[in-house]
């Protein structure tokens, strides 16, 4: 969260700068109402192209969740977020989709195509009397005023002004950092530039004017595919989701496997450092003089998650290092304290029993660089996407009486080849992390006769 705080303060600075710029501009040019008019105009022009999407639970006949969407062509194709309609994708017999326009006309929706990686979906409708929005592009310069439309908390269609703040750099997936307030219900709505072109799709918020948009380019790609797909009426999306996840995960992980990894100094060990721009690393150490052992921690994790359902997310990976140093305990006592955390496997995603199997593990002693390690390697399978797994690895050094190192690694939603290749690389990189020889080692002094 610290990074958000940092981002927040940056945004605040930016806002102050922008506000003062506007104030100066207002003094020199007499157009104080121009911006307000702009939003008003955009709203009036485009309100009929934006609609509320309702997920209707069939048994109760009531809406289970709501979101927003917008028309992208004349034949009634509508863009929204995958997470808005995910219930209907996973349980087509329990939910159906409905739209309601600003003029209160309603109708049914059919899912055409989805992109779970970028949280996008295209649905088809019978609307042919409203103009579609024009898809622009998202290469704006920082500080550009943009306008987000949607239906927050089912309060009615509304427009929010905000600022484009570039693409998130430390993210697995491109996301626009939008300084404006997005609220639940606005998901899937468009964000427009001054010309009324779509630059992004509302997707998520971290509160306090920190919001995120999906760049419109991904929607363009999906829309082209959807035109080719020719509005297939019924199909199960499990295969499509599996394929998208697998493709995405193996692509970025293979790139990571192929690239050289920077190292970091962790106590006396040299270990993989920040191996990708998308991971964030944090460190800490216990500083209690009364403690019998010293403990130093380093955690690296990617914050990106791919939404699949309310209780099932995937994507991302994490790795942690725990260094334990024995002050002057017996080895039995030291190892008794050292192994407390070894059984707590690292996990990076949430899933329930409908989504995944239980973990299966394999543990053994492994020799690395003349040292002995104990490795536990565990995997659980995705029930609907059988080629994908969550894996978690726990590696512990067991050949030193005075020092212990536990390396944990977890990856969500990978196929077994990529998982094993990544694990192999990680173990080998850990192998390189042999303790640095202490230069002030005792020398045997030869005494004269």
């Amino acid at each position, binding site marked *: 969260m610290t990074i958000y705080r940092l981002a927040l303060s940056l945004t605040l600075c930016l806002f102050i700068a922008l506000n003062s710029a506007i104030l100066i501009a207002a003094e020199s040019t007499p157009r104080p109402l121009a911006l307000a008019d702009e939003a008003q105009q955009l709203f009036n022009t485009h309100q009929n192209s934006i609609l509320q999407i309702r997920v209707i639970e069939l048994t109760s006949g009531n809406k289970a969740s709501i979101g927003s969407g917008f028309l992208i062509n004349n034949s009634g194709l509508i863009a929204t977020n995958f997470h808005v309609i995910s219930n209907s994708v996973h349980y087509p017999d329990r939910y159906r989709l409905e739209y309601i326009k600003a003029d209160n006309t309603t109708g049914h929706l059919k899912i055409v195509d989805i992109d779970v990686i970028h949280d996008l979906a295209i649905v088809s409708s019978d609307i042919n009397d409203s103009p579609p929005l024009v898809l622009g592009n998202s290469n704006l310069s920082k500080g550009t005023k943009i306008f987000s439309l949607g239906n927050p908390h089912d309060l009615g269609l509304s427009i929010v002004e905000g600022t484009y703040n570039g693409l998130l750099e430390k993210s697995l997936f491109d996301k626009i950092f939008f300084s404006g307030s997005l609220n639940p219900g606005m998901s899937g709505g468009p964000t427009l530039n001054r010309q009324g072109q779509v630059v992004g799709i509302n997707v998520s918020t971290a509160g306090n004017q920190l919001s995120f948009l999906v760049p419109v380019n991904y929607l363009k790609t999906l829309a082209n595919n959807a035109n080719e797909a020719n509005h297939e009426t019924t199909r199960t999306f499990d295969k499509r989701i599996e394929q998208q996840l697998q493709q995405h995960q193996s692509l970025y992980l293979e790139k990571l496997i192929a690239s050289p990894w920077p190292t970091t100094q962790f106590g006396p060990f040299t270990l993989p450092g920040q191996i990708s721009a998308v991971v964030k690393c944090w460190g800490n150490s216990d500083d209690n003089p009364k403690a019998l052992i010293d403990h130093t921690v380093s955690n690296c994790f990617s914050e990106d998650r791919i939404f699949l359902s309310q209780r099932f997310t995937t994507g991302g990976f994490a790795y942690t290092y725990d260094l334990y140093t024995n002050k002057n305990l017996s080895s039995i006592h030291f190892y008794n304290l050292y192994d407390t955390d070894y059984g*707590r496997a690292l996990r990076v995603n949430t899933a329930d*029993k409908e989504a995944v199997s239980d*973990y299966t593990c394999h*543990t053994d002693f492994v020799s690395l660089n003349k040292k002995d390690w104990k*490795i536990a*390697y565990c995997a659980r*399978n995705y029930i609907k996407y059988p080629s994908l797994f969550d894996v978690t690895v726990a590696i512990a050094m*067991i*050949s030193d009486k005075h020092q212990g190192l536990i390396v944990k690694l977890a990856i969500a939603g990978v196929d077994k080849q990529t998982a094993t290749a990544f694990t*192999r690389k990680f173990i080998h990189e850990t192998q390189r992390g042999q303790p640095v020889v202490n230069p002030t080692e005792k020398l045997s002094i030869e005494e004269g006769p």
Partner: protein
Amino acid sequence: MTKIIVEELNRLGHVTHRHRYDSLPITVGRAYHNDLILSDAYVCPEHLVISETASGWQIDDKSSHNGVKFKLHSEHSQPNHLHSGDDIIIGRTRLRLFSPWHTVPETHTIPVDNTISHFIARPLVASTLIIAAISLLALSTQLASTKSLTTIKLIAASLPAFMFALFWGGVWAFVGRAIVHRANFLPHFIAAVLLLIISLLVAISRDYIAYILNGETLATLFELVLMGGAVAMLIYVNLSNSTHIGRGVRLTVSHSIAWSLLLFGLFMQYAAQPEFNPSPQYNAALKPPFAKLAPSKSVDIFLEDSQQIFNVDAE
């Protein structure tokens, strides 16, 4: 001089009344003029007569309503012609006839198989075991703590287990007081302390076995067998000191209780397992270098062996 002894038995076969008669015949029935008066509604006022013959007793049914049945124990006996030890069943009453010279079984010796109890109740052994238990409890508390603890804290940590041993010994002493008129608190208490020591040692060795063999199955088996034996030992000692039950029965009872308790525990543990576990379960013990007896594998062989975790079982 007594000629016949008639025992009334209840349905469990226990004697409720015993009557002796100096002359025969005797009349049996519900009416008050009989020699043996039975208050059984299914017996006639004048039910039968027992008379003497040259080689035994003759039973004459006085044309009773519900008749007479026999349960013969002597091979010379026939219905109506009984010998010492035979049973007559009339109505809901069972009568057993004995001659005064009927041989009685050998005298039972009171079991004095208290070798374990005697041994552990010796002052030296008892005090050694108590000190050993306190030290072990203190040691395991210290081993699990990240700070060094004071002696008082360590001893205090071992008190709950001792309270259990005291309570256990107290309950059995109470039982012993009621049954064998001796409390015998010390052997009961020390046996519980011994169980404490054994379970601590078993828990530690179990961890090492699981670590060395890198598997839970044998370690769990080891733990089960030893703990079952130890609990059976405890109950055996308790029964020896608090009851007059014979050795065979004691062994059977103590082992049955111990193993049923363990099986029950295992079953409860199995039943309490969640249907879905979001965390992986693996043998997470780490032990000092001296315990690493199994050979290490290379990374490639390890990863190859690990491929089994990706085998998706068709459920």
